[in-house]
């Protein structure tokens, strides 16, 4: 049970990391496009 809980928490943390990294990359790309326009 504890193991399962830890696994889920780890998956959630990794998902959050992926979302944040994707957001940073997206904001960078938007800035580049806007500056180039």
């Amino acid at each position, binding site marked *: 049970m504890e193991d399962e809980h830890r696994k889920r928490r780890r998956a959630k943390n990794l998902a959050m990391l992926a979302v944040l990294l994707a957001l940073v990359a997206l904001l960078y790309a938007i800035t580049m*496009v806007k500056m180039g326009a």
Partner: protein
Amino acid sequence: MSDATIRREAVMDAGTAGVRDYVELLKPRVMSLVTFSGLAGLIAAPGALHPVLAATAILCIAVAAGAAGAINMWYDRDIDAVMQRTRGRPIPEGRVAPGDALAFGVVLTLGAVVLMGLATNWAAAALLALASGFYIFVYTMWLKRRTPQNIVIGGAAGAFPPMIGWAAVTGDVGVASIALFLLIFMWTPPHFWALALFRNADYRKAGVPMLPVVAGERETKRQMLAYTVLLLPVALAPWFLGIAGTAYLVGASVLGPLFVVTAVRVWFDRTDRSAKQMFAFSILYLFLLFALLIADNMA
């Protein structure tokens, strides 16, 4: 609040929800059709948007639609627990705490609106905020439990995405984007009432005044038929307004009468079978129309 509910919420405070539970909160199937209609509006709009900005606009529409779904699940958790169709959702099943679902929905909504404004323009962002607000406050909190016209007026929220996609490119709301709005607006009542017909007992049990519950099956079927007939000229409007080509015209000319036929079959059928078929066809109808609109504008 029952003991069982309190126990579930106490367990959930321990943070047992998984990524899949949060994805489920976003109502992915509803989100996909909404996003597709937004894409159609974006592609049909005159002008061009950088691919990165266009992809961001579509992402924002998808995220905001999903977030509104999460907030809807938070607000409706009491009736979701009663209804057969929705009792397996993350909140009634105790997989996500209600407060977490609300926070998730609010953060995603705000993020999507701000990102839309930064990436495209603030007219599109304002429309996105309006659509989310309309769905949450007007439909979910105000109309859904009060009137059988809930999904007629509330359906406007789901009709916004093509207009948002259009505004993301042009920065304003054109007549043609209003035609796309009307297309979804007129499509929504027969689509939802087909579902309500075969889930009538569910809605009655939960006390949601859907039209079949309040006015009966006969009246619901009559109004469904009326809407599918009214939808015929509305669906042709994009061609007359010059944003769709021959493929769309042919598609709308075939699919529209077929939609009417499904409503006629529902009218004569005393079982749930034809209502289920009409519900499935209504999704295919809208998906195909927007697919043809996209194809015409890509050609």
